[in-house]
Structure formats: C-alpha cells, structure tokens
C-alpha cells in the first residue's frame, strides 16, 4: 500500500517536473517568471476538450492541433505582451504575466463556465507493475516527462539552436556579439514553453479534474518545484518535481489534511536555507 502511494507520488512528480520545466525554459533565457503558465496549461486542456467533444476531431488530430495552438499561444504572448516590456523591472513583467493569467482564466470561465471533466481518452482502471498498482494517467505523465527531459538534454547538448539557447542564458551581450539573435531565442523559448504547456495540459487533464481553478492548482504545484530545483536549472526541475511528488504523499500519509500545504512549507524552508535551490546559480540573488 505504502509503496503504491510513493510510486504514484513519484509518477505525479513527473508531471510537476514538466510544469516547472515550462517556467525554467523562459526564465533561463529571458529572466521572466511566467506566472500565466498555469492558465496556459488550463486553457490547453480546455481547448483539447473542445476540439474532441464539440468539433469531434479524432484524438490524434486533436493533440496535433493542440500542440500547434500551444506553440502559437506562446509565440503571441511573447510578441504582443512581453516584447514591448523587455528591459523593464521584474515586477512589471511579473504583473503582466499574472494579468495574462487572469485574462485566460476569465476566458475559460466565460466560455466553459464551471464545467469540470477529465479528458475523454483518460485510461481507466489501474495499471499493475510487478506487485504494485498505479494509475495509468500518472504513469503516462512520468514516461512523457522522462522522454521530454531526455530530448531537451540532447537538444541542448548537440544542436546549434540548443547551444545558442545556452549562450543566451549565460550572457545576453556575449550571445549578441556572437551573432545570435537574442530576441529570436526569447521568442523560441516562449514557443517551446507554450508547446510544453499544451503537453502538460493533456497530462493534467487526465491526472486531475479540469476545472476553472486548474491553472491555480498547477501553479501551486509548479512554483515550489521550481524554487526547490533552482529557477534556471533543467535537471533541477526534474529532480525537484520528483522530490515534491514524493514528499507530498508522505506528508499526506502522516496527517491527511496537510497534503496540499506540504509543497509550500517545503518551499519556505528552501527559501530560508538555500534560496537559489538545489541547482540554481548563486548569483541569481542579485537580480
């Protein structure tokens, strides 16, 4: 029984890691904390639901269309809302992304009201691995998470674009002088982040009920993971997600009421002891 819970927590941690990854991608390159990300995920889940149930496209096409939607959403946010504010103080950008989140949530509530659902292709029943039973939805989340992190590591290590992104993350001026178009990289990271939001939207739509509060819920899981791993560290996001995923059910096991508060308390402790997270750069405090 206990192992089941831990395994489920670990697998859910994969989803958390993917959520945190979306923050890290944007933060690493442009030092912007995208607090609209939770709502980007929620709106992706709703759009997929709409595509599958109202437009009635086949599932595979719906998912493809959703990826296109996510990427376009990321691109548009960067171009219309973020680019005019580049170079301004961080609070301005933070408020901008927060307000975008409000806007998305308003649109969700306006169009879909208080409907709540799981995505139609959510697998039911339990999956048996060896002696243990886990939910198939979270298992999918974990597998997708591992694949995405592996792919990203490969991209960052072996492709030119990935290298350019790393240079931009390290130093904007150096990147500029090397002939890398920093703004294009910013744009690209937002597209990737939007794409990830679509992917997480699918997973989250299977793991949790989709409600208008989904965005806040996802944000509430993603931020502690982000702080634990370090704001600008890709492996940190993975490890942080898995740790929070494991710690959460442990807290719930100890006292059922505290489950939802465990990530926040963990985050406060990290902020007190090691504000830059497990893998974050120390100099980040100076921003």
């Amino acid at each position, binding site marked *: 029984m206990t192992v089941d819970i831990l395994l489920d927590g670990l697998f859910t941690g994969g989803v958390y890691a993917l959520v945190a990854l979306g923050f890290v991608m944007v933060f690493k390159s442009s030092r912007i904390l995208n607090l609209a990300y939770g709502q980007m995920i929620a709106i992706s889940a709703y759009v997929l639901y709409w595509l599958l149930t109202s437009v009635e496209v086949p599932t595979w096409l719906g998912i493809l269309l959703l990826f296109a939607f996510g990427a376009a959403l990321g691109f548009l946010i960067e171009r219309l809302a973020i680019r005019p*504010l580049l170079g301004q103080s961080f609070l301005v950008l933070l408020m901008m992304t927060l*307000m975008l989140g409000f806007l998305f949530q308003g649109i969700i509530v306006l169009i879909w009201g*208080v409907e709540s659902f799981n995505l139609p292709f959510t697998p039911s029943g339990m999956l048996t691995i060896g002696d243990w039973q886990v939910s198939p939805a979270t298992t999918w989340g974990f597998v997708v998470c591992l694949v995405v992190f592996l792919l990203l590591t490969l991209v960052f290590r072996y492709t030119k674009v990935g290298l350019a992104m790393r240079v931009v993350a390290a130093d904007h001026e150096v990147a500029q002088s090397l002939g890398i178009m920093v703004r294009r990289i910013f744009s690209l990271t937002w597209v990737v982040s939007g794409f990830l939001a679509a992917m997480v939207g699918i997973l989250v739509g299977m793991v949790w009920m989709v409600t208008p509060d989904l965005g806040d819920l996802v944000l509430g899981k993603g931020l502690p993971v982000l*702080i634990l791993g370090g704001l600008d560290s890709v492996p940190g996001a993975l490890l942080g997600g898995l740790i929070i995923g494991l710690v959460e059910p442990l807290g719930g096991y100890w006292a059922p009421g505290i489950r939802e508060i465990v990530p926040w308390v963990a*985050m406060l402790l990290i902020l007190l002891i090691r504000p830059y997270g497990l893998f974050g750069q120390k100099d980040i405090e100076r921003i």
Partner: protein
Amino acid sequence: MFPSGTFNARPEQDIAIVRTKTQWLLLVAGLIFMFTLILYIPLAWQSWLIFVGIYAIAALGVHIMTGLCGQFSMGQAAFMAVGAYTTATLSTRYGVSPWATLPLSGIAAGLAGVIFALPAVRIKGFYLVMSTIAAQFIIVWFLREASWTGGVYGTSVPKITIGGEALNYVQYWWLTLGLVVVAIFFAKNIQRTTTGRTFVAVRDNDKAAEVMGINLFRTKLLAFFIGCFFAGIAGWLWAHFLLYVSPNQFAFKTSLWLLGMIIIGGMGSTTGAVLGVAVIRFMDKLVDELAPVVSAAFPSWSGQVAPALSLIVFATVVIFFILVEPKGLYHRLQRIILYYRLYPFSYHR
C-alpha cells in the same frame, strides 16, 4: 513644480502636506463631501462605498510595503484574513469588545507579516514574491483546517455597537472613512519621517542604503509590519461589516487585485493607491451592472458572465496601464495639474 513666482520661503512650508489656504478649503470640502456621500447614493451603492474604504486601507498597506519599501507582497489578502479572524475569534468566543480588537487585529496581522517576511532579509525579487505567495496559501489553508476557525464555513462575527445600538450602513461608512483618513494621513506622513526615507532608500538601492548605516533587516521587517498592520485593520472592518468570515473571502485573487490597484494608481504614491482602488472598484461595479445585459445578449453564457467579465476587464485594464501608462493615474493627474499651473508657459517638458 510651482507656478512662476511662487516659492516656499520657510521650511514649514516645504514640509507641509497641505500647503495653501485653497488646498485646506478643498480638503475640508472634500472631507465633508466624502462623509455625506453615503446619504446621496442609492442603497445598492452603500455597501460598495464601504468596501472601497476597506480596500483602500489594505491597498495603502501594499503601498507602504511595495511602493515605498520595494518589498513585493502578493499575500495581502491572507494578512487581511489574519486580522478578520483575530477579531472574529476574540469577540465571538471570548466576548472581547470589537473596539478592543481593532488594534489587536492590526498587531496580529503585522506579526504574521513579520514571520513570513523573515526570509526577506536573505532574498529579494522573485524569491520574496514566492515567500508571500506561500504565506497566502499557508495562512488560508490553516484557517480552513484549524478546529477553532469554523473550517470552510467560517464563523460569524458580532456587530459593532455604540451605546448598545448596532451601527447601520451610514454610521459604518463614517467609521470606515474615519479609519481611511487616519490611514492616508499615516501613509502620507511616514514619507516625511526618517522611517519613510529609510524605506525609500532600501527600495532604490539596498546596498547603498546598507552602506549608509541603514539596518536592512529592521527596515524590511518594519515595512512588512506596517503594511500588514493596515491589512489587519482592513480585515477588522471587513469582518464586522459582513458579520461573517470564511477562508474563501480572502483568495489569492484579492491579493493580486490589491497589487493591481496600486499599479493602476501609480506605484509609490498615496493618492495613487486610493485612486487605483476607487477606479478598479468602480469598474467592477459597472461590470456587475452590465453583466445582466451581456447575459441577455448571449444566453448560452448566462451563468458565468459576471465572474468572467470581472476577471477579463480587470486584467485588460491593468495590462493597458502597464503597456501605455506604466506610471499610473497619479502621474497623469500630476501632468494635468502641472499643465494648469504653468499654463501660459507650457514649455516645461
């Protein structure tokens, strides 16, 4: 800037909040207008007006933390909840008079703020924002789970009485306005004291401030204490007005609304904070009035138009201000006044 030929001849004139006789006259007239305003407006707007006052006090708290000291707080609603629950618990369970709980609510909220601001010494920027968001979620969670708070359903709060008679709406507005005036005066005045100037120094450059001998730790904690004290007072008013508190009233959203209000009004200005509250609350009221019309036009959305429009309008307005008028309404007001003062010589900027 003054019109040409006008100078401050004495230091008292330099530091005065209200400078000229005309301004005194305007101030008194404005105060009389505000105190009697509730008598002219329809009943449906009376509770709206009182809430403007309550939000104004909370927003002034954010103004002191964020606008003056540069410490971003996204948990103001939770600190309001601390104040509200302090008075609810003390007056319902222990029979303490609401008047006695007024300062206690403020102090309880202030102490809660200090506890969550403790990491603020080591961290800033994003990390501080995170810590205040954590405060928001942890406090509200605690109020929902703890046994003595009444859980999700909340708890009832007694009415405020004077000489055995409960306050009606009009009297409650006078009480609220009285507290708002005190809060505005305090916020305005603190900018002229050593404390306020220390806040501004920390906001503008904390390293330079530290080199000049300012104790960063104390200054930041003090800013949090004062800001959250205001939140506690607002929570006290909130609880005794609604006569009922529940954790859902103090959502994360409310904290962000307060932050949005001071951005719209103009960061770092007392007038701006109050202006922002009035504008945002007025727009929210308009949306409430408009929602039935919109739902009539689009029947398929009827149930959700009001909450959705309120979110969308607020977000759009703040985004508009961030993109087009980042310095806020107060800055624009200043420009207009300046234009009027310098009228024939409009060369200035």
